[in-house]
């Protein structure tokens, strides 16, 4: 139900419970690999050339600011997609057949469309500027790209909600009904509180996928970390920097996502113990 196509969190061979989900070893390995690549680039470069390491350092503030945009896009897409997706998911368990069918269709459609295609659609279909109270407001590329990423988030959250609600035993509904709860009260007080715990790990998985997919927005010209790295490489005109520079970008994503993946895994294990 919640197996998502782009990435699954890394599963270490021997899962260890507890809060040590921040395993520094892998980060160290990756950093070492990049240093080696940087060293190799250094050895191949002309003697006068600047070391790969110092080039990376030089570009770090700019690319870092681009990375902040990646984070911003992912957070906004996730927040908006979660809000809409919650509503959509609740519509999927509505008692009204048309509401149920409509929300199911929307969910299925956006869940089974390639993210990049949705991104293109939003970039080219949404208006470049809108007029609010007589003022012309430009809609920057990155905002339209964020909307493009919100759609799949919405659809996936909708499925997470529906799956979580349906995973609860039917007896919970019956007990609440017998106690004269209305359907809304049952949802708010009995069903959703129990679902939140079940929804958290798949929701965090989804976030990891969203942040990983933000470099897709570079294809449509958003000036995020990927675009800026490519720009820096063009400016440097040195093929030997290709591997270390993209390696540094990989490392940035890795350092950001790894704790999230570990935390997700930890929550999953904790829920398994409890349930």
């Amino acid at each position: 139900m919640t197996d998502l196509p782009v990435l699954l969190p890394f599963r270490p061979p021997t899962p260890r419970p507890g809060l040590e989900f921040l395993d520094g070893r892998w980060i160290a390995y990756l950093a070492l690999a990049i240093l080696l690549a940087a060293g190799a680039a250094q050895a191949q470069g002309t003697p006068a050339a600047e070391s790969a390491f110092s080039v990376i350092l030089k570009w770090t503030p700019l690319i870092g600011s681009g990375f902040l945009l990646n984070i911003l896009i992912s957070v906004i897409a996730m927040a908006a997609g979660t809000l809409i997706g919650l509503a959509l998911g609740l519509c999927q368990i509505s008692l009204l057949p048309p509401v149920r069918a409509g929300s199911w269709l929307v969910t299925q459609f956006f869940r089974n469309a390639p993210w990049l295609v949705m991104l293109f659609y939003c970039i080219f279909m949404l208006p470049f500027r809108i007029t609010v109270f007589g003022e012309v407001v430009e809609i920057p590329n990155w905002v339209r790209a964020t909307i493009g990423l919100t759609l799949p988030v919405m659809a996936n959250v909708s499925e997470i909600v529906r799956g979580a609600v349906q995973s609860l035993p039917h007896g919970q509904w019956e007990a609440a009904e017998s106690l004269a709860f209305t359907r809304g009260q049952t949802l708010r007080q009995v069903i959703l509180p129990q679902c939140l715990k079940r929804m958290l790990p798949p929701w965090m998985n989804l976030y990891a996928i969203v942040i990983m997919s933000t470099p897709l927005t570079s294809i449509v010209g958003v000036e995020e970390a990927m675009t800026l790295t490519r720009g820096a490489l063009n400016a440097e005109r040195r093929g030997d920097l290709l591997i270390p520079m993209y390696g540094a970008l990989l490392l940035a994503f890795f350092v950001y996502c790894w704790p999230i993946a570990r935390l997700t895994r930890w929550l999953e294990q904790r829920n398994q113990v409890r349930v």
Partner: protein
Amino acid sequence: MDTPLVSIQAVHKRFGDLEVLRGVSLDVARGEVICIIGPSGSGKSTLLRCVNALVRPESGRITVAGIDVTAAKLDPIALRRRVGMVFQQYNLFPHRTALQNVMMAPVSVLKQDKREVEARARALMAKVRLQGKEGAYPGELSGGQQQRVAIARSLCMQPDVMLFDEVTAALDPETVKEVLVTIRDLAEEGMTCLLVTHEMGFARDLADHVYFTDRGVIVEHAPPAEFFGNPKDARTREFLGQVL
């Protein structure tokens, strides 16, 4: 006799092609305890669930405390305030403590004063012999303890009628007794009870009237001494021969 508190007349219910209830009638007076026994699949649970409108029959008439349960425009909330139901699988809310489970419905459905409800809930926890377990989560309680919390939870709504659907069927033999004792106390205080049970000894001791159902009809009904001492129908005799 006064008008019965629960009156079921000629109720029919089908699920698809399966006729589960084929004209069931029974009356329960206030303060009476009736037991429904019968083989698996004979429609006992369905009958109980018709009483609090979890299941809506196709035809027939049910009234509970003056409420027409079979009316097209039934207000199920008004009905369920008067009817408590306890299930085989307890169905406690696992994210709330025992005390919160007991308090939830009166506070949020009946909008009663929280302190008043809490006092009542604590008294009920004591009554089902669970003092000291108020703060425990359902997952921390044994099956028998959970079932007694479920009984207290229903009682806290101050219902007129209690429905028990095989409430001891999921318990170990040792804990069955503690739940039966709780129900006995309740019956002796005058609570009107409809029980579906496989505990024949319990039915014999406690029931005012015993009903035997098979394939959607009431085959035979009588006071327990007569029902168990001198069953008339061959199907009843066969069933009792198997379970006793």
